[in-house]
């Protein structure tokens, strides 16, 4: 590419606001809705502390404002406190996305002292039984409740995050009560998005339409009732929607995702799209990954979308939806998101959704594949 073309790209592409730092794919939980890829990256492939610290410094220089420390379980990394320190030093707002089952009170206090800004704690169920069934970890519910109390005792702001699906959607009111009881300021109730492990488990996770409607009504009622006391963010299940989600607020527009081994992705599911070339933060500066890596430039803007999208008044609202879902359902990542009511595949999605919701499949729990050995 010419210097002039490079310079043009660098001037026209706005810098990212957020960095999703997937520190590790290791996790004590085995949630079947996990958004991580089915092929998990192993500990031996993870980047070093120095790699991550360099990436955080580069992110701050690039214009990132918030860092979401995620995984897997980010606390499975021994250097979590050091990484939070680096965020604070660089002026980055640090958000710890955790399952809350493996952080001792001493370590939490160290994270707080290092400058941690916010904790997002996941709940799989609103009681012991559902939590164990979904997470595959005995005793997880009590540990999470204790962790929430420790977070609040330190004065750290707390958001509870719940992924909703067939096995816990009946507990929406219980999750709201739990958030109040634990003193959370915010509650995110997000329906499962079918990528990675969740896609593999779609037949076990997809709720029935009437369950979705009941849950939405419960959320709306609580939002009104608890205004000013508990903020409730709701993410609707897009298979049941008329229009697609504004996925990532646009490809390569606001967020950059770095995997445990250092790959720079426009979204956590981007590796499902064949033929995309991802650059590694081990070999490339974050600035170059954002501006020049082929994967980030593959679907920037809306020019690649079909004519139906070009003439649609929602083009600049949802950008044609999710590229990964378009590929998954239509075989073409440039198609409109097939959940859209204008998509030729929309009816097919509706049929598929009803079929999946009526299945009675067991969970395929999220696990590392056993290393195959040749005899």
């Amino acid at each position: 590419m010419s210097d002039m073309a490079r310079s043009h790209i660098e001037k026209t592409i706005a810098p990212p606001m957020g960095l999703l730092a997937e520190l590790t794919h290791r996790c004590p939980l085995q949630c079947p809705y996990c958004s991580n890829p089915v092929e998990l990256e192993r500990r031996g492939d993870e980047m070093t502390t120095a790699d991550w610290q360099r990436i955080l410094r580069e992110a701050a220089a690039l214009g990132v404002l918030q860092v979401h420390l995620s995984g897997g379980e980010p606390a499975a990394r021994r250097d979590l406190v050091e990484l939070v320190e680096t965020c604070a030093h660089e002026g980055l707002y640090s958000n710890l996305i955790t399952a809350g089952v493996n952080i001792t009170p001493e370590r939490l206090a160290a994270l707080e002292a290092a400058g941690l800004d916010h904790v997002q704690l996941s709940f799989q169920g609103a009681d012991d039984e559902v939590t164990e069934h979904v997470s595959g970890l005995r005793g997880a519910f009590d540990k999470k409740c204790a962790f929430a109390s420790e977070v609040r005792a330190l004065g750290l702001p707390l958001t509870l995050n719940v992924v909703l699906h067939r096995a816990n959607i009946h507990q929406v009111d219980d999750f709201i009560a739990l958030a109040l009881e634990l003193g959370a300021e915010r509650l995110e109730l997000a329906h499962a998005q079918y990528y990675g492990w969740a896609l593999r488990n779609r037949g076990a996770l997809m709720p029935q339409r009437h369950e979705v409607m009941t849950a939405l009504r419960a959320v709306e009622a609580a939002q009104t009732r608890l205004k000013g006391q508990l903020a409730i963010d709701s993410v609707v299940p897009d298979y049941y929607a008329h229009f697609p989600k504004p996925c990532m607020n646009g490809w390569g527009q606001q967020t950059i995702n770095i995997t445990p081994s250092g790959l720079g992705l426009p979204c956590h599911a981007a590796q499902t799209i064949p033929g995309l070339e991802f650059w590694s933060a081990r070999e490339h500066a974050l600035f170059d990954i954002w501006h020049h890596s082929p994967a980030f430039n593959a679907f920037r803007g809306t020019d690649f979308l079909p004519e139906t999208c070009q003439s649609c008044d929602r083009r600049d609202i949802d950008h044609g939806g999710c590229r990964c879902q378009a590929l998954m359902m239509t075989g073409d990542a440039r198609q409109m998101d097939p959940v859209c009511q204008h998509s030729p595949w929309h009816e097919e999605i509706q049929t598929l959704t009803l079929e999946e919701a009526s299945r009675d499949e067991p969970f395929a729990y999220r696990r590392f594949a056993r290393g195959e050995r040749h005899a």
Partner: protein
Amino acid sequence: MSAGLNDNTVVRLPRGVRMRHDAARGGWVLLAPERIFQLDAIAHAVMSHVDGRQSVSQIVDTLTADYNAERRRIRHDVLALFHALIDRRVLEVVA
């Protein structure tokens, strides 16, 4: 709820909300849990006086002097901004 906001109210940023300069895009932002609020020049001028000690009316007096503007209008703008930010939980009333 921001119903109790009046001239004597003192407000502050709650824990987990920070204001900082955004060099990459220009201007100032409020960083909050899972959200970022971009402040325009007026909002930043108001927020730069929020320190958990000054009352609404003290902030309005300072801004009226600084900008040589009509006090009633500044008071209206300050209250409107504080109401909006309190409703979004990025500003709180000091008890």
